[in-house]
């Protein structure tokens, strides 16, 4: 496959960036999107140019590191798929593909396609934990969890914290991420003691980090590589309403 990519190049956090066009020739349709960038980077290095910086780690779709907005869609055109699991056969020979970093005030660009996603960690630090005694591991059946709750909690826990919801949201809000974390802990008996403080503290951390507010536009769930449902945001709202009414 011969394609053109237009990539956001930015030398550093405070440098001005711009879209730069590159020709990429002879790419296998079975290559992943990241492998295509790898091939392009090899050419750039051979020519003495600076390779394109991008985040990646497991390349198995479970680490949440890859973060590219491809043709305006976070993680590209394939539904419920991370950039690393997207293959070039989803594109046509001769296509011009635009690649941009996540765009959000809370996610400043570090270089090219790499952004700083620390604010998501700050939200987790504010309330994404449970209090449990340390020591020997408890018996697996010490705290029974209904199957329905365990499944729902697991669905929410599949959130890999990649930040695609923020990248896609017209308001730049991380509400789907926060909602997934609140549901994943709040559905379990172990998550009950901090349930009220969790929702208040995590929303406060989210606002402090400079994320926008949720208007239920629904862009987040359509790009989420794990298909986290938007209904979890309703659960967050319900938890929040109950928590502030108790204060």
């Amino acid at each position, binding site marked *: 496959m011969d394609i053109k990519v*237009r990539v*956001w190049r930015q030398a550093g956090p405070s440098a001005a960036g711009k*879209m730069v066009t590159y020709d990429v020739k002879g790419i296998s349709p079975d290559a992943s999107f990241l492998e295509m960038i790898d091939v392009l980077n090899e050419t750039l290095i051979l020519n003495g140019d600076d390779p394109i910086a991008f985040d990646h780690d497991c390349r198995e779709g479970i680490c949440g590191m890859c973060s590219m*907005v491809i*043709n*305006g*869609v976070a993680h590209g055109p394939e539904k419920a798929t991370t950039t690393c699991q997207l293959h070039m056969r989803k594109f046509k020979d001769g296509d011009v593909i*635009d690649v*941009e970093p996540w*765009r*959000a*005030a*809370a996610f400043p660009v570090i270089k090219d396609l790499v952004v700083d996603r620390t604010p998501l960690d700050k939200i987790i630090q504010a309330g994404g934990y449970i209090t449990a005694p340390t020591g020997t591991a408890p018996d697996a059946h010490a705290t029974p969890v209904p199957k329905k709750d365990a499944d729902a909690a697991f669905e929410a826990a599949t959130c890999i914290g990649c930040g695609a919801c923020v990248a*896609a949201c*017209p*308001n*730049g*809000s991380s509400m789907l991420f926060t909602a997934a974390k609140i549901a994943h802990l709040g559905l379990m008996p172990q998550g009950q003691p901090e349930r009220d403080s969790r929702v208040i503290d995590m929303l406060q951390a989210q606002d402090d980090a*400079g*994320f*926008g*507010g949720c*208007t*239920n*536009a*629904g*862009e987040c769930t*359509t*790009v989420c590589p794990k298909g986290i*449902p*938007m*209904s*979890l*945001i*309703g*659960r967050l*709202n*319900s938890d929040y*309403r109950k928590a502030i009414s108790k204060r």
Partner: protein
Amino acid sequence: MAVSGALLVLFLFAHAAGNLKIFVGLSDFDHYAEWLRGLGTPLLPHAWFLWIQRVGLLVAIGLHIWAATALTIRARKARPVKYAHRPKIQGSYAARTMRWGGVIIVLFVIYHILDLTTGHLNPEGGDSDPSARVVADFAPERWYVTLFYVVSVVAVGFHLRHGIWSAFRTLGQQTTKGERRAQAIALVLSVVLVAMYLSVPFAVLTGLVD
């Protein structure tokens, strides 16, 4: 957003139901307008109850616009650098047009009050019967007024299509089945409301009400 919006939706339905009185007869419509002003008497002086409602509505509108403005400012701040490539493939048309739709609705409401409540912009003037103002307003030669009315009412319909569902979600709706139900309620209420409002200019235009 959700609570103030819900109050405004209740008002819109009460207002639309009152409008339909015009199909009973022009003088019945005028009597309805007079009755509205007499509500609450003799407990309250004439038209006081109406003014209490108007103040309540203004507070709801104020809160609604304040919340919408705060969300818009936050959204702008949250994405200072725009995407170079941003297709409009996802989300619903209704959700995308909430902000501009809201601005159109505010402008329309101001015009609507100057036209049909105070009569300043109405060919019949402020001293005429309410029904005469309605009939004069939607006369075929004033097609541009009717067009603006239709566009604005459809904008209200789109606004509610997303707004009603979004209000359910904000107030804590969280099941998949409930989501489908809330979406259906939002769609049905929006379509019914638009049909109720559009029936009046349609009836005047076609001579059904004369």
